[in-house]
């Protein structure tokens, strides 16, 4: 390390050998965990994922076990989070709801991210008529209200998890593609992209190794915001009868269905709402942490 550098980012010492990708990743991951906030958000995220996987083992009741005699009972024993109007155990339903909500949220955002970022990157990088065509198509999709398009798609394909994911991800594709295109447009006019051309690199190499890594910040932030957004939109679909069908639970449907009992049995909406809230906090913090971590200039890294 020479004395002239400004930030004290740890530099490999002299005895260090050239290493493969894995040990570099491990080192980078350890650096990520040095921040308390990152440990918290990653831990919370993993907690919810484990919860979703282990839901059948943890849940004290089946999610569809009806017990009319105990309908609308307050949190206590044996119903830790109370029951709904049909006497179904809220705790069990919230756990199973984690499965549906998280899988719909994650898969939808991932689909939207991969497809949208590719489209936006192609559009912004190539420009010209390719850009015009892609962006006009994206605008056509954006002009249709998201929920209307999702309703139409689900009513054609039938209300199943894959068709809900498909219906919700089309909207995300347009959102990701616009953000990605904007970032690519600003990055591609940077001097280092011209320098890459002057060094004879291929367009694919320039886009994937040089342009996209410099666009990662806004994309990660959008992804973490959209995750909560998707989980809530799914509940709107359910509310309109086109989402996850009863008795399968999802956080969104539970919150929506609990609405009518809010004044005297708030626990029906409260607990799925709490889980949704915590998940969103976890993913938003994780997204922010990742963004700062991936930017080598980030002052908050160390």
């Amino acid at each position, binding site marked *: *390390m020479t004395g*002239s550098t400004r930030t004290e980012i740890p530099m490999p010492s*002299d005895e260090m050998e050239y290493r493969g990708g894995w040990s570099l990743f491990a080192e980078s991951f350890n650096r990520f965990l040095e921040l308390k906030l990152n440990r918290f958000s990653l831990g919370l995220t993993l907690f919810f994922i484990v919860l979703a996987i282990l839901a059948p083992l943890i849940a004290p009741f089946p999610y569809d076990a009806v017990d009319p005699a105990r309908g609308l009972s307050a949190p206590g024993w044996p119903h830790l989070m109370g029951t709904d109007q049909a006497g179904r155990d809220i705790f069990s339903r919230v756990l199973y709801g984690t499965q549906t909500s998280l899988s719909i949220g994650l898969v939808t955002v991932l689909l939207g991210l991969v497809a949208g970022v590719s489209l936006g990157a192609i559009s912004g990088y190539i420009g010209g008529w390719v850009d015009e065509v892609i962006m006009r198509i994206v605008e056509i999709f954006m002009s249709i209200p998201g929920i209307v398009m999702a309703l139409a798609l689900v009513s054609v394909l039938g209300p199943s998890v894959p068709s809900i994911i498909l219906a919700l991800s089309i909207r995300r594709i347009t959102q990701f593609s616009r953000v990605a295109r904007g970032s690519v447009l600003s990055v591609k006019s940077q001097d*280092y992209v011209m320098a890459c051309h*002057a*060094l*004879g*690199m291929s367009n694919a190499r320039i886009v994937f190794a*040089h342009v996209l890594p410099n666009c990662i910040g806004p994309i990660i932030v959008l992804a973490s915001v959209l995750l909560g957004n998707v989980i809530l939109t799914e509940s709107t679909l359910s509310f309109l009868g086109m989402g996850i069908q009863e008795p399968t639970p999802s956080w969104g449907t539970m919150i929506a269905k609990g609405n009518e009992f809010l004044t005297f049995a708030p626990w029906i909406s409260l607990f799925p709402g709490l889980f949704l809230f915590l998940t969103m906090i976890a993913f938003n913090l994780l997204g922010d942490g990742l963004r700062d971590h991936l930017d080598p200039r980030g002052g908050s890294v160390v």
Partner: protein
Amino acid sequence: MSPVLELKNLQTHFETRSGTVRAVDGVSYHVNQGETLGVVGESGCGKSVTSLSILRLIPNPPGKIVGGSVLFEGEDLTQVPENRIRAIRGKEISMIFQEPMTSLNPMMTVGNQISEPLIRHLGLTKKDALDRAREMLDLVHIPDSKSWLSGYPHQMSGGMRQRVMIAMALACDPKVLIADEPTTALDVTIQGQILMLIKELQEKLGTAVVMITHDLGVVAEVADRVVVMYAGRKVEEADIHTLFERPRHPYTVGLMTAIPRLDQIAEADGDPERLTEIPGTVPLLSELQPGCAFKDRCAFATERCGQQAPALEEKSKGHWAACWHEAPFQ
């Protein structure tokens, strides 16, 4: 000595709303092996566009090479297919740019960035490429090269980044290095170091250098031969000594008198002498009128200059100029 790179009557035009801009309007020059050619001119004279045209780096649209040829070892670069020109960029002909602060990817380590052309052009493995990258960092005198391999550009100063740019450009041992104002964004002491470095590496590696600059001082320091450009055309060409001793174009004379000189300031008693300037600015290249492009700013312009553009003429051996008048212009 045969030229490595030869431009013949190169024409690059930009189509804009206000008409065709003839940014490069029939420029010819050549560089021999191991030689440094200075290309001088003020902002907007087409010197950068010329150099970008050599590697076909002009964004199209709006720019387009509409005529002439760029011969590299007998191959016309304006005609070769896209993948051939990509194989030449960075391997046979390299470029370094004006802005070292923004010419490196901020998200990638210095080592990886220098390795990239090595992996692409020479097919080295990642490990060999990093070894070579380290040698290149040593070559451009970056201390503690091994740890800098995993450093990021934002940790470096402007001068260090320009050294890294030079290391990247020379990594594949190119035959020609085009340096587009490599020292403009640096402060004077670093400018000197970078120029000395380029000169030193050129002697070591035998690279031909095209040094593009607006600074005659830089040219005097490094160039063997000089091309003076004005409004997209070459107006004078000579070897460095001839040019400074006996400039044949009023524009060149104007550039020389505009250089601040310590001895002149000292001579003036009381008020420091005001720098001489060339009146006016470069004409818009979209609205060139007939006659010499320099006539409106030239103290020696006559009626003939307004009617007919002077052609390049060999005034003495190896000394070309495009002017109706005879030197000296004092």
